[in-house]
């Protein structure tokens, strides 16, 4: 390679910046259009039309919403704890976005003789001839998602309002409970893969035209992980923190303007991340037919799988009613955690004898 900066080729920096920008813009656009897709899909499921006025079939609706929220009046309650009130939306939003750094969205592509793995936190080592990524990718995601709870707790507490506090407490109790169940359910996957690196987990699922997916080897773990993740990010049917019939709007009752929009974006960004992680762990990641010949097909398969799971999320929202709070806690602690533990033991026994 020609030019080197601080011991690394120039191409390395260009590739890194390009990957970060592409992934970030992709997640942002997906978040914006997920709100539109959700309204449209639920509308059609309930025999309505959904947004129709802004643009062709309402296609400009997310932009109109963004502009509207941007120009709304910014209100900070006079009795609120100002600092915590201001940083809470940021703390909710940032972990939702940075988890995307370790998710592989494609194979290795070659640009001008330089090999680039399509995963932000990864590089191709030419001397070793393999991709090095974050060795603890899944743990990184679990760690970041455990930070997301602060945004909601702080928002609930700092608003100095009873509804917000109740929403914040509910949300954090729910997130902590289901974090455990989600973490336990994917341990069974690591027992099969023997690694925590997401690149290697995707590689291990590449054979037999999709039949090596961990979905088929660990169907119970896949189901539990998806449901627990839905609960962890407070999606329907587990959206108790925002139960508007009981709590106005939960932890974001007192928020307005862009700060409210940040919570909204965090929710959808979390949804994208959870779907991407489920795809990576259970649905073979970016694997699909002909990816070896045309590496750029990898991201296409990945995006298609992620969008399918997001459609499932919206479908669930249109179909299922909300859980009651005691049912939610019962499901998390007394059903999912014991079943996940039994699943680990059974996987261990089978793995020992095979």
């Amino acid at each position: 390679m020609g030019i080197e900066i601080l011991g690394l080729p120039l191409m390395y920096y260009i590739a890194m910046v390009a990957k970060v920008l592409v992934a970030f813009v992709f997640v942002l656009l997906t978040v914006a259009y997920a709100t539109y897709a959700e309204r449209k899909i639920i509308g059609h499921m309930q025999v309505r039309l959904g947004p129709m006025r802004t643009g062709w079939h309402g296609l400009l609706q997310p932009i109109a919403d963004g502009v509207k929220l941007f120009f709304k009046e910014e209100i900070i309650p006079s009795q609120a704890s100002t600092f915590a009130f201001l940083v809470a939306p940021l703390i909710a939003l940032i972990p939702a976005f940075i988890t995307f750094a370790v998710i592989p969205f494609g194979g290795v592509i070659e640009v001008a003789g330089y090999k680039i793995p399509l995963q932000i936190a990864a590089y191709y080592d030419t001397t070793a001839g393999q991709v090095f990524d974050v060795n603890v990718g899944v743990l990184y995601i679990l760690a970041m998602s455990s930070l997301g709870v602060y945004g909601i707790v702080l928002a609930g507490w700092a608003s100095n309002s009873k509804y917000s506090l109740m929403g914040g407490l509910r949300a954090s109790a729910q997130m902590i409970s289901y974090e455990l169940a989600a973490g336990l359910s994917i341990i069974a996957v690591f027992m099969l893969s023997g690694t925590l690196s997401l690149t290697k987990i995707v590689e291990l699922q590449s054979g037999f035209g999709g039949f090596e997916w961990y979905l088929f080897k660990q169907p119970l773990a896949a189901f539990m992980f998806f449901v627990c993740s839905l609960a962890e990010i407070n999606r329907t049917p587990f959206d108790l923190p925002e139960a508007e019939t009981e709590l106005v709007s939960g932890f974001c009752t007192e928020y307005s303007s862009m700060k409210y929009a940040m919570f909204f974006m965090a929710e959808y960004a979390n949804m994208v991340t959870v779907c991407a992680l489920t795809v990576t762990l259970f649905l073979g990641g970016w694997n699909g037919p002909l990816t070896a010949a045309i590496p750029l097909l990898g991201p296409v398969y990945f995006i298609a799988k992620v969008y399918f799971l997001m459609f499932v999320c919206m479908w669930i929202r249109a179909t299922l009613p909300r859980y009651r709070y005691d049912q939610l806690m019962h499901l998390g602690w007394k059903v999912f955690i014991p079943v996940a533990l039994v699943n680990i033991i059974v996987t261990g026994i089978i793995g020992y004898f095979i």
Partner: protein
Amino acid sequence: METLFFLIITLVALISAILVITCKNPINSALALIMTFFCLATYYVMLDAPFMAAVQVMVYAGAIMVLMVFTIMLLNIRVDATKKHSHKLIFASIIGFFTVINLIVMLVKSRAALPTGPYSGEMIKMIGHTELVGREIFTSFLLPFEITSILLLVAIIGAVILAKKKI
């Protein structure tokens, strides 16, 4: 590159550590402490120990500090109601003074070129930090590991008995 990164992280770590003890509002102190833990996790990454970093964030920032924040929130300490405590200023400054002297002596007197152990950075990169830690825990350090887990179990049972009058 790494030195620059280290300096930036150290600056953030120091500022947030100072904020932990100077903030009036206990919640803001807790937030600053979380930031400090996060910087410590970054140090672990730079020392080729990504597993430690992830565990640091998950356990300290993600679990223990959530409990602390909960406690502060539920106690609901008002900022104006908190008295200005002296916190035994003289005693603390004596301890701090001797700690600083200790650190300086350690820095000056210690040999930088210690013998290298079997686990080099290259080896960690090839095999993986998690795998190495796991192998060591379940072979050489199996007994301490099991004793720790029994201790934790005892602590959990104790907490349940203390919290619940009727079982």
